[in-house]
């Protein structure tokens, strides 16, 4: 199952297409669009509001809490891939192993719900 370098060609192609699309569209829009720069054009529209201050303001910890819980469950799910590939081979024992693991995390999930950590108030 030793993989060959050419096996990665599709992935490389995908990277090139993804990067190329971003770069290409940016290049093309700058070239194609008319280039008029004036004070009025760069101004906020008449129905908009003047932008105030800076975008970098400290925001609520709640976002961070959700993000950190997401990472935890994200990592948890990753453990399932190698398990799923070996599911038949590991048999019932492997199933129980995973059940214990998931049990712990499910408990954590219910605990989080009970504590109201995901409530937005």
């Amino acid at each position, binding site marked *: 199952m030793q993989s060959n370098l050419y096996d990665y060609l599709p992935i490389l192609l995908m990277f090139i297409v993804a990067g190329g699309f971003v770069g290409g569209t940016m290049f093309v829009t700058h070239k194609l669009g008319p280039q008029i720069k004036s004070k009025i054009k760069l101004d906020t529209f008449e129905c908009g509001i003047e932008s105030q201050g800076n975008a970098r303001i400290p925001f609520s*910890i709640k976002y961070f809490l959700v993000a950190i819980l997401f990472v*935890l469950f994200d990592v948890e799910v990753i453990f399932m891939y190698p398990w799923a590939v070996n599911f038949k081979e590991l048999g019932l024992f492997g199933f129980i192993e995973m059940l214990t693991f998931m049990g712990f995390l499910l408990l954590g999930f219910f605990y989080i719900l009970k504590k109201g950590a995901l409530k937005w108030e």
Partner: protein
Amino acid sequence: MMIKYIFYFLAFVSVFSALMVVVSKNPVHCVLYLIMCFFSIAGHYVLLNAQFLAAVHVIVYAGAIMVLFLFVIMLLNLNTQSEPHKSTWLKFAAAITSGLLLVILVGTLKGSETMVMPVGNPNAGLIKNLGNTLFKDFLLPFEVSSILFLVAMVGAVMLGKKEIK
């Protein structure tokens, strides 16, 4: 032959981006360089024939954890570019200690060029073999890691949740 050049390229990218993480003034640039670093390390994993680890590395580190990093930067409010002044002595001591560590690491790595490494299974990084090792030999660490996750969850809720009075 091709692999050798890819390795050198990836090594250059990872070292360069890691250095840029340290020297960049703008914290957001640091994070972007860190993403670059993570991607190049994922490339190293692919070279070592560990595709699963490479994918996980991109998903978890470059994806999820970097978002957390950006969140922390937002939380810290780094608008004012005021870094606390560090005394010259402190810088001096830090330079000496980290320099010594560098000398030791380079020295030992140079000395082990001819070392015979124990040869493992070259396919150990493939998802199937990884799963086999993880769920058979390393069963207990796997289960204990769920306790570690639980601790992290409880801790995050405890610190992040506003107390209801």
